Protein backbone atom coordinates (compact mmCIF):
# COMPACT_ATOMS: atom_id res chain seq x y z
CA UNK A 1 0.00 0.00 0.00
CA UNK A 2 2.34 2.71 1.21
CA UNK A 3 5.33 2.99 -1.03
CA UNK A 4 8.77 2.45 0.43
CA UNK A 5 9.62 6.13 0.23
CA UNK A 6 6.47 7.11 2.12
CA UNK A 7 7.16 4.57 4.82
CA UNK A 8 10.70 5.83 5.31
CA UNK A 9 9.53 9.44 5.35
CA UNK A 10 6.94 8.67 8.03
CA UNK A 11 9.48 6.83 10.14
CA UNK A 12 11.90 9.73 9.96
CA UNK A 13 9.09 12.13 10.83
CA UNK A 14 8.12 9.97 13.79
CA UNK A 15 11.66 9.89 15.16
CA UNK A 16 12.02 13.66 14.77
CA UNK A 17 8.73 14.38 16.53
CA UNK A 18 9.59 11.98 19.35
CA UNK A 19 12.87 13.85 19.71
CA UNK A 20 10.88 17.08 19.83
CA UNK A 21 8.89 15.59 22.74
CA UNK A 22 11.84 14.35 24.75
CA UNK A 23 14.85 16.58 24.07
CA UNK A 24 13.40 19.51 26.09
CA UNK A 25 12.98 17.24 29.13
CA UNK A 26 16.55 16.06 28.71
CA UNK A 27 17.71 19.70 28.58
CA UNK A 28 16.08 20.34 31.96
CA UNK A 29 17.94 17.39 33.45
CA UNK A 30 21.25 18.56 31.98
CA UNK A 31 20.76 22.09 33.30
CA UNK A 32 20.25 20.80 36.84
CA UNK A 33 23.95 19.87 36.84
CA UNK A 34 25.04 23.25 35.54
CA UNK A 35 27.72 24.78 37.73
CA UNK A 36 27.15 28.26 36.34
CA UNK A 37 24.29 30.34 37.73
CA UNK A 38 23.49 31.71 34.28
CA UNK A 39 21.53 29.76 31.70
CA UNK A 40 23.70 30.04 28.62
CA UNK A 41 24.44 27.12 26.35
CA UNK A 42 26.84 25.30 26.09
CA UNK A 43 27.38 24.44 29.72
CA UNK A 44 30.98 24.86 30.86
CA UNK A 45 31.22 22.81 34.02
CA UNK A 46 29.02 20.39 35.88
CA UNK A 47 28.24 19.93 39.55
CA UNK A 48 25.82 18.16 41.87
CA UNK A 49 26.11 20.79 44.59
CA UNK A 50 22.73 22.33 43.81
CA UNK A 51 21.03 19.06 44.66
CA UNK A 52 22.43 19.38 48.17
CA UNK A 53 21.49 23.05 48.32
CA UNK A 54 17.96 22.35 47.13
CA UNK A 55 17.58 19.66 49.78
CA UNK A 56 18.72 22.10 52.47
CA UNK A 57 16.54 24.95 51.20
CA UNK A 58 13.83 25.64 53.77
CA UNK A 59 11.37 27.01 51.17
CA UNK A 60 11.69 23.83 49.15
CA UNK A 61 11.08 21.73 52.25
CA UNK A 62 8.01 23.71 53.26
CA UNK A 63 6.67 23.52 49.71
CA UNK A 64 7.29 19.79 49.59
CA UNK A 65 5.45 19.29 52.87
CA UNK A 66 2.47 21.33 51.67
CA UNK A 67 2.38 19.55 48.32
CA UNK A 68 2.47 16.11 49.92
CA UNK A 69 -0.23 17.03 52.45
CA UNK A 70 -2.52 18.54 49.82
CA UNK A 71 -2.02 15.66 47.38
CA UNK A 72 -2.68 13.06 50.09
CA UNK A 73 -5.94 14.59 51.30
CA UNK A 74 -7.14 15.46 47.80
CA UNK A 75 -6.44 11.86 46.76
CA UNK A 76 -8.40 10.44 49.69
CA UNK A 77 -11.37 12.68 48.91
CA UNK A 78 -11.14 11.77 45.23
CA UNK A 79 -11.05 8.10 46.23
CA UNK A 80 -14.26 8.36 48.27
CA UNK A 81 -16.24 10.54 45.87
CA UNK A 82 -14.92 9.00 42.68
CA UNK A 83 -15.61 5.41 43.77
CA UNK A 84 -19.09 6.25 45.05
CA UNK A 85 -20.00 7.97 41.79
CA UNK A 86 -18.60 5.08 39.75
CA UNK A 87 -20.73 2.57 41.69
CA UNK A 88 -23.83 4.73 41.32
CA UNK A 89 -23.39 4.96 37.56
CA UNK A 90 -22.52 1.29 37.18
CA UNK A 91 -25.28 -0.19 39.33
CA UNK A 92 -28.22 2.11 38.67
CA UNK A 93 -30.27 3.62 35.91
CA UNK A 94 -31.47 7.05 36.92
CA UNK A 95 -32.39 10.40 35.51
CA UNK A 96 -29.27 12.39 34.69
CA UNK A 97 -27.02 9.32 34.66
CA UNK A 98 -25.49 10.33 31.36
CA UNK A 99 -24.69 13.74 32.77
CA UNK A 100 -22.57 12.38 35.65
CA UNK A 101 -19.47 11.61 33.56
CA UNK A 102 -19.87 14.86 31.72
CA UNK A 103 -20.09 16.98 34.87
CA UNK A 104 -17.24 15.16 36.62
CA UNK A 105 -14.87 15.73 33.72
CA UNK A 106 -15.71 19.43 33.38
CA UNK A 107 -13.03 20.71 35.78
CA UNK A 108 -10.44 19.00 33.59
CA UNK A 109 -12.04 19.68 30.21
CA UNK A 110 -12.70 23.38 30.71
CA UNK A 111 -9.71 25.70 30.88
CA UNK A 112 -8.22 25.47 34.38
CA UNK A 113 -8.34 29.21 34.74
CA UNK A 114 -12.14 28.98 34.88
CA UNK A 115 -12.10 26.58 37.84
CA UNK A 116 -9.40 28.70 39.42
CA UNK A 117 -11.16 32.00 39.16
CA UNK A 118 -14.54 30.47 40.12
CA UNK A 119 -13.04 29.13 43.35
CA UNK A 120 -11.10 32.34 43.96
CA UNK A 121 -14.27 34.36 43.52
CA UNK A 122 -16.25 32.16 45.89
CA UNK A 123 -13.46 32.18 48.50
CA UNK A 124 -13.30 35.97 48.35
CA UNK A 125 -17.04 36.39 48.29
CA UNK A 126 -17.58 34.39 51.46
CA UNK A 127 -14.48 35.73 53.21
CA UNK A 128 -12.87 32.29 53.62
CA UNK A 129 -9.15 32.54 54.47
CA UNK A 130 -6.76 31.05 51.89
CA UNK A 131 -5.01 27.97 53.28
CA UNK A 132 -3.91 24.44 52.45
CA UNK A 133 -7.59 23.55 52.74
CA UNK A 134 -8.65 25.85 49.93
CA UNK A 135 -5.91 24.36 47.72
CA UNK A 136 -7.00 20.87 48.68
CA UNK A 137 -10.68 21.53 47.87
CA UNK A 138 -9.76 22.68 44.36
CA UNK A 139 -7.48 19.69 43.79
CA UNK A 140 -10.02 17.15 45.02
CA UNK A 141 -12.57 18.55 42.59
CA UNK A 142 -10.53 17.79 39.49
CA UNK A 143 -9.02 14.57 40.89
CA UNK A 144 -12.39 12.87 41.37
CA UNK A 145 -12.79 12.11 37.67
CA UNK A 146 -9.50 10.19 37.54
CA UNK A 147 -10.55 7.71 40.22
CA UNK A 148 -14.07 7.62 38.81
CA UNK A 149 -12.90 6.72 35.30
CA UNK A 150 -10.56 3.98 36.46
CA UNK A 151 -13.07 2.36 38.80
CA UNK A 152 -15.94 2.61 36.32
CA UNK A 153 -13.85 1.08 33.53
CA UNK A 154 -12.94 -1.83 35.80
CA UNK A 155 -16.52 -2.34 37.00
CA UNK A 156 -17.70 -2.52 33.40
CA UNK A 157 -15.01 -5.03 32.58
CA UNK A 158 -15.73 -7.36 35.49
CA UNK A 159 -19.45 -7.68 34.86
CA UNK A 160 -22.17 -8.53 37.37
CA UNK A 161 -22.38 -12.33 37.36
CA UNK A 162 -19.90 -12.81 40.20
CA UNK A 163 -21.84 -10.41 42.38
CA UNK A 164 -25.06 -12.26 41.61
CA UNK A 165 -23.41 -15.61 42.37
CA UNK A 166 -22.20 -14.26 45.70
CA UNK A 167 -25.68 -13.03 46.63
CA UNK A 168 -27.20 -16.35 45.59
CA UNK A 169 -24.76 -18.17 47.84
CA UNK A 170 -26.05 -16.18 50.77
CA UNK A 171 -23.51 -13.42 51.21
CA UNK A 172 -24.85 -10.12 52.46
CA UNK A 173 -24.04 -6.81 50.80
CA UNK A 174 -20.94 -6.19 52.87
CA UNK A 175 -19.54 -9.69 52.35
CA UNK A 176 -20.12 -9.47 48.62
CA UNK A 177 -18.29 -6.19 48.54
CA UNK A 178 -15.48 -7.40 50.79
CA UNK A 179 -14.82 -10.75 49.07
CA UNK A 180 -15.99 -10.25 45.48
CA UNK A 181 -16.23 -6.64 44.36
CA UNK A 182 -13.27 -5.17 46.23
CA UNK A 183 -10.67 -7.74 45.06
CA UNK A 184 -11.83 -7.12 41.50
CA UNK A 185 -11.57 -3.34 41.61
CA UNK A 186 -8.71 -2.94 44.08
CA UNK A 187 -5.94 -2.35 41.58
CA UNK A 188 -8.08 0.06 39.58
CA UNK A 189 -8.77 2.06 42.73
CA UNK A 190 -5.09 2.22 43.60
CA UNK A 191 -4.18 3.16 40.03
CA UNK A 192 -6.77 5.93 40.06
CA UNK A 193 -5.48 7.21 43.39
CA UNK A 194 -1.87 7.25 42.19
CA UNK A 195 -2.88 9.27 39.16
CA UNK A 196 -4.94 11.62 41.31
CA UNK A 197 -1.91 12.08 43.54
CA UNK A 198 0.29 12.85 40.56
CA UNK A 199 -2.27 15.25 39.17
CA UNK A 200 -2.52 17.14 42.45
CA UNK A 201 1.24 17.21 42.97
CA UNK A 202 1.60 18.69 39.49
CA UNK A 203 -1.07 21.38 39.55
CA UNK A 204 -0.36 25.09 39.22
CA UNK A 205 -3.11 26.75 37.14
CA UNK A 206 -5.87 26.37 39.74
CA UNK A 207 -3.48 26.42 42.70
CA UNK A 208 -2.39 29.95 41.84
CA UNK A 209 -5.93 31.09 42.52
CA UNK A 210 -6.62 29.10 45.68
CA UNK A 211 -3.34 29.12 47.59
CA UNK A 212 -2.99 32.67 48.92
CA UNK A 213 0.48 32.73 50.48
CA UNK A 214 0.86 28.96 50.78
CA UNK A 215 3.63 27.48 48.64
CA UNK A 216 3.40 24.13 46.87
CA UNK A 217 6.24 22.65 44.81
CA UNK A 218 4.88 23.82 41.42
CA UNK A 219 4.19 27.21 42.98
CA UNK A 220 7.77 27.35 44.22
CA UNK A 221 8.95 26.77 40.66
CA UNK A 222 6.50 29.33 39.31
CA UNK A 223 7.51 31.99 41.83
CA UNK A 224 11.26 31.47 41.44
CA UNK A 225 11.50 30.77 37.72
CA UNK A 226 12.17 34.37 36.85
CA UNK A 227 14.50 35.10 39.76
CA UNK A 228 18.10 34.60 38.65
CA UNK A 229 19.27 34.04 42.23
CA UNK A 230 17.25 30.85 42.66
CA UNK A 231 17.68 29.46 39.14
CA UNK A 232 19.94 26.51 40.04
CA UNK A 233 17.55 25.42 42.80
CA UNK A 234 14.60 25.64 40.40
CA UNK A 235 16.49 23.46 37.91
CA UNK A 236 16.98 20.79 40.55
CA UNK A 237 13.39 20.95 41.84
CA UNK A 238 12.17 20.62 38.25
CA UNK A 239 14.11 17.37 37.82
CA UNK A 240 12.83 16.03 41.13
CA UNK A 241 9.26 16.81 40.07
CA UNK A 242 9.82 14.95 36.80
CA UNK A 243 10.94 11.88 38.74
CA UNK A 244 8.15 12.11 41.32
CA UNK A 245 5.62 12.18 38.49
CA UNK A 246 7.04 9.25 36.55
CA UNK A 247 6.97 6.76 39.42
CA UNK A 248 3.25 6.86 40.37
CA UNK A 249 2.19 7.01 36.72
CA UNK A 250 4.36 4.01 35.89
CA UNK A 251 2.97 1.96 38.77
CA UNK A 252 -0.58 3.00 37.87
CA UNK A 253 -0.05 1.88 34.31
CA UNK A 254 1.13 -1.52 35.52
CA UNK A 255 -1.75 -1.92 37.97
CA UNK A 256 -4.48 -0.98 35.55
CA UNK A 257 -3.42 -3.82 33.26
CA UNK A 258 -3.33 -4.00 29.52
CA UNK A 259 -6.96 -3.62 28.45
CA UNK A 260 -7.75 -0.36 30.12
CA UNK A 261 -5.07 2.23 30.09
CA UNK A 262 -5.04 4.03 33.42
CA UNK A 263 -3.26 7.01 32.05
CA UNK A 264 -5.61 7.03 29.10
CA UNK A 265 -4.58 9.94 27.02
CA UNK A 266 -3.12 11.62 30.04
CA UNK A 267 -5.08 13.82 32.35
CA UNK A 268 -7.48 15.47 30.02
CA UNK A 269 -8.25 12.55 27.79
CA UNK A 270 -10.39 11.45 30.71
CA UNK A 271 -13.01 13.06 28.49
CA UNK A 272 -12.86 10.11 26.19
CA UNK A 273 -14.60 7.65 28.47
CA UNK A 274 -17.63 9.90 28.31
CA UNK A 275 -18.39 8.66 24.83
CA UNK A 276 -17.82 5.02 25.61
CA UNK A 277 -20.55 2.78 24.23
CA UNK A 278 -23.17 1.70 26.73
CA UNK A 279 -23.09 4.88 28.72
Amino acid at each position, binding site marked *: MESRAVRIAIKIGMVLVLAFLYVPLLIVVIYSFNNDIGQTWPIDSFTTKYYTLAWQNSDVRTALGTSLLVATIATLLAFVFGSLAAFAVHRFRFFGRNAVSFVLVLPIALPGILTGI*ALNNAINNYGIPFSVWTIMIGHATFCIVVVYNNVLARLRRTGGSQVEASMDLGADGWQTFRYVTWPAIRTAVIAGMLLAFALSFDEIVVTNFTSGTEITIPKFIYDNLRQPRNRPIVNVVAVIVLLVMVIPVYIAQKLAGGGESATGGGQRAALRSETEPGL
Partner: protein
Amino acid sequence: MASATVGASRGMRARLSAFFFRHRLLRLAALLGPPGAWFAVIYLGTLFLLFATAFWHLDPFTGLVVKQFSLQNFQTIVHDPVYRTIIVRTVGISLAVVATDVVLAFPLAYYAARLAPARAKNAVLIAVVLPLWANYLVRIFAWRLILSPGGLLVWLFDKIGVHWSVGYSNVAVWITFSYLWLPYVVLPMYAALERVPGSLLEASSDLGARGWKTFRAVVFPLIVPGIVAGSIFAFSLTLGDYIVVQLVGNTRFIGNVIYDSVGVASNIPFAAAFALVPVAIMSIYLFVAWRLGAFEAL
Protein backbone atom coordinates in the same frame (compact mmCIF):
# COMPACT_ATOMS: atom_id res chain seq x y z
CA MET B 1 -34.04 -12.34 48.72
CA ALA B 2 -31.60 -14.90 50.07
CA SER B 3 -29.47 -12.28 51.72
CA ALA B 4 -32.39 -11.00 53.75
CA THR B 5 -33.36 -14.36 55.30
CA VAL B 6 -29.87 -15.66 55.95
CA GLY B 7 -28.76 -12.21 57.02
CA ALA B 8 -31.27 -12.01 59.86
CA SER B 9 -29.13 -14.32 61.96
CA ARG B 10 -26.09 -12.15 61.50
CA GLY B 11 -27.45 -9.18 63.36
CA MET B 12 -27.11 -5.51 62.70
CA ARG B 13 -24.83 -5.52 59.66
CA ALA B 14 -26.94 -8.03 57.77
CA ARG B 15 -30.12 -6.17 58.58
CA LEU B 16 -28.57 -2.99 57.35
CA SER B 17 -27.40 -4.56 54.11
CA ALA B 18 -30.79 -6.21 53.62
CA PHE B 19 -32.43 -2.86 54.23
CA PHE B 20 -30.29 -1.24 51.58
CA PHE B 21 -30.87 -4.16 49.26
CA ARG B 22 -34.62 -3.60 49.47
CA HIS B 23 -34.47 0.17 49.13
CA ARG B 24 -32.85 0.88 45.81
CA LEU B 25 -33.43 4.58 45.97
CA LEU B 26 -31.69 4.90 49.33
CA ARG B 27 -28.74 2.94 48.03
CA LEU B 28 -28.49 5.24 45.08
CA ALA B 29 -28.76 8.30 47.31
CA ALA B 30 -26.04 6.97 49.60
CA LEU B 31 -23.74 6.45 46.61
CA LEU B 32 -24.48 9.55 44.60
CA GLY B 33 -25.23 11.95 47.45
CA PRO B 34 -21.73 12.74 48.71
CA PRO B 35 -20.01 13.28 45.32
CA GLY B 36 -23.13 15.00 44.01
CA ALA B 37 -23.25 17.43 46.91
CA TRP B 38 -19.52 18.15 46.67
CA PHE B 39 -19.79 18.94 42.97
CA ALA B 40 -22.99 20.93 43.30
CA VAL B 41 -21.53 23.19 45.98
CA ILE B 42 -17.85 23.42 45.16
CA TYR B 43 -17.87 23.28 41.40
CA LEU B 44 -21.25 24.09 39.89
CA GLY B 45 -22.06 26.48 42.73
CA THR B 46 -18.88 28.47 42.34
CA LEU B 47 -19.22 28.49 38.56
CA PHE B 48 -22.72 29.88 38.92
CA LEU B 49 -21.50 32.52 41.34
CA LEU B 50 -18.78 33.42 38.85
CA PHE B 51 -21.41 33.84 36.18
CA ALA B 52 -23.41 36.11 38.45
CA THR B 53 -20.30 38.08 39.37
CA ALA B 54 -19.72 38.86 35.70
CA PHE B 55 -22.75 41.13 35.86
CA TRP B 56 -21.56 43.04 38.92
CA HIS B 57 -19.00 45.79 38.69
CA LEU B 58 -16.29 47.56 40.62
CA ASP B 59 -17.04 50.98 42.06
CA PRO B 60 -14.28 53.17 40.56
CA PHE B 61 -13.98 55.30 43.73
CA THR B 62 -14.19 52.82 46.58
CA GLY B 63 -12.74 49.83 44.69
CA LEU B 64 -15.50 47.69 46.17
CA VAL B 65 -17.72 45.28 44.29
CA VAL B 66 -21.19 46.64 43.59
CA LYS B 67 -23.58 43.71 43.58
CA GLN B 68 -26.05 45.12 41.10
CA PHE B 69 -26.91 43.86 37.66
CA SER B 70 -25.11 45.78 34.93
CA LEU B 71 -23.56 45.08 31.56
CA GLN B 72 -20.66 47.43 32.23
CA ASN B 73 -17.95 44.75 32.01
CA PHE B 74 -19.26 43.44 28.73
CA GLN B 75 -19.45 46.93 27.28
CA THR B 76 -15.79 47.45 28.18
CA ILE B 77 -14.82 44.16 26.53
CA VAL B 78 -16.70 44.94 23.33
CA HIS B 79 -15.69 48.58 23.01
CA ASP B 80 -12.08 48.62 24.18
CA PRO B 81 -9.85 47.86 21.15
CA VAL B 82 -7.13 46.50 23.45
CA TYR B 83 -9.28 43.52 24.34
CA ARG B 84 -10.27 42.93 20.74
CA THR B 85 -6.58 42.75 19.80
CA ILE B 86 -5.92 40.33 22.64
CA ILE B 87 -8.84 38.10 21.67
CA VAL B 88 -7.78 38.04 18.01
CA ARG B 89 -4.18 37.31 19.00
CA THR B 90 -5.20 34.46 21.30
CA VAL B 91 -7.51 32.85 18.77
CA GLY B 92 -4.90 33.27 16.02
CA ILE B 93 -2.14 31.60 18.02
CA SER B 94 -4.55 28.87 19.16
CA LEU B 95 -5.37 28.05 15.54
CA ALA B 96 -1.69 28.12 14.61
CA VAL B 97 -0.98 25.70 17.45
CA VAL B 98 -3.75 23.39 16.24
CA ALA B 99 -2.39 23.42 12.69
CA THR B 100 1.17 22.77 13.87
CA ASP B 101 0.12 19.92 16.12
CA VAL B 102 -1.92 18.27 13.38
CA VAL B 103 1.13 18.26 11.11
CA LEU B 104 3.48 17.05 13.86
CA ALA B 105 1.04 14.41 15.09
CA PHE B 106 0.57 12.81 11.71
CA PRO B 107 3.78 10.76 11.41
CA LEU B 108 3.42 9.49 14.99
CA ALA B 109 -0.24 8.59 14.56
CA TYR B 110 0.26 7.05 11.13
CA TYR B 111 3.24 5.01 12.23
CA ALA B 112 1.44 3.69 15.33
CA ALA B 113 -1.79 2.98 13.46
CA ARG B 114 -0.58 1.44 10.24
CA LEU B 115 3.14 0.72 10.05
CA ALA B 116 4.31 -0.38 13.48
CA PRO B 117 4.46 -3.99 14.66
CA ALA B 118 2.37 -4.55 17.83
CA ARG B 119 5.19 -3.96 20.32
CA ALA B 120 6.51 -0.84 18.65
CA LYS B 121 2.96 0.48 18.47
CA ASN B 122 2.51 0.30 22.24
CA ALA B 123 5.93 1.79 22.82
CA VAL B 124 5.16 4.76 20.58
CA LEU B 125 1.78 5.36 22.19
CA ILE B 126 3.26 5.27 25.68
CA ALA B 127 6.09 7.54 24.56
CA VAL B 128 3.49 10.01 23.32
CA VAL B 129 1.40 9.98 26.50
CA LEU B 130 4.22 10.01 29.03
CA PRO B 131 5.27 13.67 28.59
CA LEU B 132 1.71 14.68 29.54
CA TRP B 133 2.48 13.41 33.00
CA ALA B 134 5.69 15.35 33.23
CA ASN B 135 5.02 18.54 35.13
CA TYR B 136 3.35 21.15 32.97
CA LEU B 137 5.46 23.92 34.47
CA VAL B 138 8.66 22.00 33.93
CA ARG B 139 7.81 21.49 30.27
CA ILE B 140 7.33 25.23 29.81
CA PHE B 141 10.51 25.83 31.77
CA ALA B 142 12.36 23.55 29.34
CA TRP B 143 11.40 25.79 26.43
CA ARG B 144 12.32 28.87 28.40
CA LEU B 145 15.79 27.38 28.76
CA ILE B 146 16.01 26.47 25.08
CA LEU B 147 14.61 29.66 23.57
CA SER B 148 16.04 32.26 25.92
CA PRO B 149 18.75 34.61 24.68
CA GLY B 150 22.01 32.69 25.08
CA GLY B 151 20.12 29.42 25.13
CA LEU B 152 20.50 26.24 23.12
CA LEU B 153 18.59 27.42 20.05
CA VAL B 154 20.56 30.63 19.61
CA TRP B 155 23.74 28.59 19.88
CA LEU B 156 22.48 26.08 17.29
CA PHE B 157 21.44 28.83 14.90
CA ASP B 158 24.80 30.46 15.39
CA LYS B 159 26.54 27.24 14.36
CA ILE B 160 24.70 27.21 11.05
CA GLY B 161 25.25 30.91 10.55
CA VAL B 162 21.77 32.22 11.31
CA HIS B 163 21.78 35.11 13.72
CA TRP B 164 18.29 35.04 15.11
CA SER B 165 16.99 34.70 18.63
CA VAL B 166 13.42 33.61 19.25
CA GLY B 167 13.64 35.08 22.73
CA TYR B 168 10.47 35.72 24.64
CA SER B 169 7.92 36.34 21.91
CA ASN B 170 4.76 35.12 20.25
CA VAL B 171 6.87 32.65 18.29
CA ALA B 172 8.15 31.20 21.56
CA VAL B 173 4.57 31.03 22.83
CA TRP B 174 3.46 29.24 19.66
CA ILE B 175 6.29 26.67 19.88
CA THR B 176 5.71 26.02 23.57
CA PHE B 177 1.95 25.54 23.19
CA SER B 178 2.49 23.22 20.23
CA TYR B 179 4.86 21.21 22.37
CA LEU B 180 2.55 21.06 25.37
CA TRP B 181 -0.60 19.85 23.63
CA LEU B 182 0.85 17.62 20.91
CA PRO B 183 -0.03 14.33 22.67
CA TYR B 184 -3.71 15.30 22.86
CA VAL B 185 -3.78 15.61 19.07
CA VAL B 186 -1.90 12.39 18.39
CA LEU B 187 -4.26 10.07 20.24
CA PRO B 188 -7.60 10.78 18.50
CA MET B 189 -5.77 10.95 15.16
CA TYR B 190 -4.25 7.56 15.86
CA ALA B 191 -7.67 6.15 16.74
CA ALA B 192 -9.15 7.56 13.53
CA LEU B 193 -6.33 6.21 11.36
CA GLU B 194 -6.64 2.79 12.93
CA ARG B 195 -10.31 2.65 12.01
CA VAL B 196 -9.65 3.28 8.31
CA PRO B 197 -10.27 -0.15 6.73
CA GLY B 198 -7.29 -1.51 4.82
CA SER B 199 -9.64 -2.78 2.13
CA LEU B 200 -10.53 0.78 1.17
CA LEU B 201 -6.87 1.55 0.56
CA GLU B 202 -6.50 -1.58 -1.55
CA ALA B 203 -9.62 -0.69 -3.50
CA SER B 204 -8.25 2.78 -4.10
CA SER B 205 -4.96 1.45 -5.40
CA ASP B 206 -6.73 -1.19 -7.50
CA LEU B 207 -8.67 1.61 -9.12
CA GLY B 208 -5.37 3.20 -10.03
CA ALA B 209 -4.93 5.88 -7.39
CA ARG B 210 -1.37 6.63 -6.35
CA GLY B 211 -0.35 7.14 -2.72
CA TRP B 212 -1.03 10.87 -2.57
CA LYS B 213 -4.34 10.57 -4.35
CA THR B 214 -5.44 7.77 -2.00
CA PHE B 215 -4.47 9.87 0.98
CA ARG B 216 -6.34 12.93 -0.25
CA ALA B 217 -9.47 11.19 -1.51
CA VAL B 218 -9.82 8.27 0.92
CA VAL B 219 -7.76 8.53 4.10
CA PHE B 220 -8.03 12.25 4.81
CA PRO B 221 -11.84 12.55 4.63
CA LEU B 222 -12.13 9.55 6.95
CA ILE B 223 -9.82 10.98 9.61
CA VAL B 224 -11.14 14.54 9.62
CA PRO B 225 -13.39 13.86 12.65
CA GLY B 226 -10.39 12.47 14.54
CA ILE B 227 -8.27 15.48 13.67
CA VAL B 228 -10.98 17.86 14.78
CA ALA B 229 -11.51 15.89 17.99
CA GLY B 230 -7.81 16.15 18.81
CA SER B 231 -7.77 19.82 17.98
CA ILE B 232 -10.44 20.55 20.60
CA PHE B 233 -7.94 20.06 23.42
CA ALA B 234 -5.12 21.95 21.75
CA PHE B 235 -7.44 24.84 21.00
CA SER B 236 -9.25 24.98 24.33
CA LEU B 237 -6.10 24.65 26.42
CA THR B 238 -4.31 27.40 24.51
CA LEU B 239 -7.33 29.63 24.79
CA GLY B 240 -7.44 29.50 28.58
CA ASP B 241 -3.74 29.43 29.42
CA TYR B 242 -1.95 32.28 31.16
CA ILE B 243 1.26 30.70 32.39
CA VAL B 244 2.99 29.97 29.07
CA VAL B 245 2.61 33.58 27.99
CA GLN B 246 3.97 34.81 31.32
CA LEU B 247 7.03 32.58 31.08
CA VAL B 248 8.03 32.63 27.41
CA GLY B 249 6.01 35.49 25.90
CA ASN B 250 6.02 39.26 25.90
CA THR B 251 2.37 40.02 25.14
CA ARG B 252 -0.98 39.34 26.79
CA PHE B 253 -3.48 36.62 25.97
CA ILE B 254 -7.06 36.08 27.17
CA GLY B 255 -5.82 34.12 30.17
CA ASN B 256 -3.48 36.93 31.19
CA VAL B 257 -6.28 39.49 31.15
CA ILE B 258 -8.28 37.25 33.49
CA TYR B 259 -5.30 36.53 35.72
CA ASP B 260 -4.22 40.16 35.95
CA SER B 261 -7.77 41.28 36.68
CA VAL B 262 -7.83 38.98 39.69
CA GLY B 263 -4.31 39.60 40.90
CA VAL B 264 -3.07 43.02 39.89
CA ALA B 265 -6.29 44.98 39.46
CA SER B 266 -8.40 42.90 41.89
CA ASN B 267 -11.36 43.51 39.64
CA ILE B 268 -12.98 40.10 39.97
CA PRO B 269 -16.25 41.07 38.24
CA PHE B 270 -14.30 42.03 35.14
CA ALA B 271 -12.23 38.83 35.34
CA ALA B 272 -15.47 36.86 35.60
CA ALA B 273 -16.92 38.61 32.57
CA PHE B 274 -13.75 38.10 30.57
CA ALA B 275 -13.69 34.41 31.54
CA LEU B 276 -16.88 34.07 29.54
CA VAL B 277 -14.97 35.06 26.38
CA PRO B 278 -13.06 31.75 26.07
CA VAL B 279 -16.23 29.90 27.04
CA ALA B 280 -18.13 31.61 24.21
CA ILE B 281 -15.33 30.97 21.69
CA MET B 282 -15.12 27.35 22.82
CA SER B 283 -18.87 26.94 22.37
CA ILE B 284 -18.57 28.05 18.77
CA TYR B 285 -15.58 25.79 18.23
CA LEU B 286 -17.37 22.81 19.77
CA PHE B 287 -20.43 23.49 17.62
CA VAL B 288 -18.31 23.41 14.48
CA ALA B 289 -16.49 20.31 15.74
CA TRP B 290 -19.82 18.63 16.38
CA ARG B 291 -20.99 19.41 12.86
CA LEU B 292 -17.79 17.85 11.53
CA GLY B 293 -18.56 14.66 13.46
CA ALA B 294 -15.74 15.06 15.95
CA PHE B 295 -17.65 13.72 18.95
CA GLU B 296 -18.07 10.29 17.42
CA ALA B 297 -14.30 10.22 17.05
CA LEU B 298 -13.36 11.10 20.65
